[in-house]
């Protein structure tokens, strides 16, 4: 069981991060933002940054820090919200999201000064890079872990499976992938676009697989993450987290329309009201 204090902290931070996502996305105006993809992954990212990872916002290049790679880079708002709430970036910097000359692009862009470990946005690549980072830790006998957030649609990409097989071959049990299984991708539901049993695929590739029913429940997510973190089975680990796209905002939940778009004022007001009454 995850420790109650940690669960409370992650829940509290998750609520703040949801608000940050809405604020950044609204401030981006006509440039729009990927709301749904960020909101489904909030508990996972908050769980990592506030309950699981060894890291220090004052020292982003600390040698033994755990690494976080957000392979589903379009959900960067969740990442930027975590960087804000942990103190890697200021609130002022947060509001530059997608602005001219900002370092907070619509996809994470490597910037070690502010804790952005790996550039992503071209789906699939972040995960394969994370596998290389995990192998590097093994080569150097470093103890840190590598955590990687992957989309369920992203699992359509061949590179995911090339990398997954390779990670199993090299017994990267210091690598923990989390699949944000929100069931919706860009053009349709995951069932419509590519209906596959990803659990079986990850298993067949040689990974330790755990399915978390409550992917938006802090306690369940923390428990799964801890279990995988503390296991040295000789296999890489994947947590398949069942989540809801757009979690927390009624009109975004499960919606294709809120994958990426601008947020008009009336929607913003409703979203804020819902978060405040949650």
């Amino acid at each position, binding site marked *: 069981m995850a420790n109650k204090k940690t669960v409370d902290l992650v829940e509290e931070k998750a609520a703040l991060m949801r608000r940050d996502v809405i604020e950044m996305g609204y401030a981006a105006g006509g440039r729009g933002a990927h709301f749904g993809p960020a909101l489904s992954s909030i508990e996972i990212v908050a769980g990592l940054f506030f309950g699981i990872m060894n890291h220090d916002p004052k020292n982003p290049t600390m040698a033994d820090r755990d690494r976080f790679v957000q392979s589903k880079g379009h959900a960067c708002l969740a990442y930027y919200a975590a960087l804000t709430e942990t103190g890697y970036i200021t609130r002022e910097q947060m509001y530059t999201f997608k602005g001219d000359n*900002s370092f907070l692009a*619509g996809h994470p862009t490597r910037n070690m000064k502010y804790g952005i470990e790996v*550039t*992503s*946005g071209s*789906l699939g690549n972040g995960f394969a890079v994370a596998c290389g980072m995990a192998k590097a830790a093994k080569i150097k006998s470093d103890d840190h872990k590598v955590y990687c957030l992957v989309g369920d649609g992203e699992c359509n990409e*061949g590179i995911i499976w090339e990398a997954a097989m390779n990670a199993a071959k090299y017994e990267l049990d210091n690598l923990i992938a989390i699949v944000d299984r929100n069931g919706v991708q*860009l053009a349709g539901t995951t069932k419509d676009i590519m209906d596959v049993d990803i659990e079986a695929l990850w298993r067949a590739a040689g990974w330790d697989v755990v399915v978390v029913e409550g992917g938006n429940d802090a306690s369940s997510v923390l428990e799964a993450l801890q279990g995988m973190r503390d296991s040295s089975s000789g296999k890489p680990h994947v947590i398949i987290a069942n989540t809801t796209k757009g979690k927390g905002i009624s009109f975004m939940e499960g919606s294709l329309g809120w994958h990426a778009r601008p947020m008009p004022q009336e929607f913003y007001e409703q979203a804020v009201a819902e978060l405040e009454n949650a």
Partner: protein
Amino acid sequence: MTARGVDMRKAPTDRLQEWSKKGHRTVQGDTLVMLAADYPDMVVISADLTPTARLTDFRETYPDRFFDVGIAEQNLIDFTVGLALEGLRPFAVGLAGIVPMRPAEQMRAALGYMNANATVIGIEAGVRFGPLGNTHYAMDDIAVVRAIPNFTVICPSDPLSTHKALYACAEHEGPVYVRLTGGPGYPVMYPEDFDFQIGRAIEYRPGSDVAFVSSGSLLADAVGAADILEGKGISARVVDMHTVKPLDTEMLDRVFAENKLVVTVEEHSSIGGLGGAVAEYKAGFADAPKQLIASLGDKFQKLGDHTFLMKLNGLTAPDLAALAEANV
């Protein structure tokens, strides 16, 4: 009629303002629906991009002729080639920033090498995706595809030429890459029906001092630059080199013989795009005029919206005019 009740067969010229307001994605999406009516073998393949690429109408109108391979761009190309080899006429649609690069090897080994009759459409080319950042910019797509033998590369400059280019692709033998630039509200350069032929550049306006040779939606800015120069007594020719491969060398021969300065204009890296193609051809001339390459340079871009990035890279009409004036 489509599922949405829009008459897709309406004359393209009637739709120009509407198309230009909605940008090139809509133009290509609508045109694919029109093409399907004329070409029963025509099919569309996409990689989890239907709404982004404005393919929803196509999917609804021709559900049996639309295929989504999932987020799998390498498969997008090879699957397309398989369809083409068996006599279908496939159009594969993807993001210009991802599709020619991620499956570059499939584009070469399957599509190019087997000389398959298929068209690959790259939407949002150049830095159109502004705030999404460099993973979503297409600054190297012309360079990559142009280097593959058998490929034809087309960069239409406006809605009607995009429409006509896609019709030309349906008749073309061999692989084509169509690179689409021009966001919502992009200028209508060809308001009337006109003759569009693959490989045949269009002299958009005559001029004797400078020649702007442009590709894609920057044609409008090149014309704007020519207007500015005219006010200063400098005569500027503007050429719409909509086909970057094969180049219209007859048109270039005239430009080299008649103009004092060539400025190639493109929303692409300074390496391997239209500028590179023109320079390669020009290398065979002992006394051709000087050439300047107006482009995105050889760098990853700063983050910003499209207008910001165009200014930063000197690709607005006043920038192009100043560049030409300083060098002519």
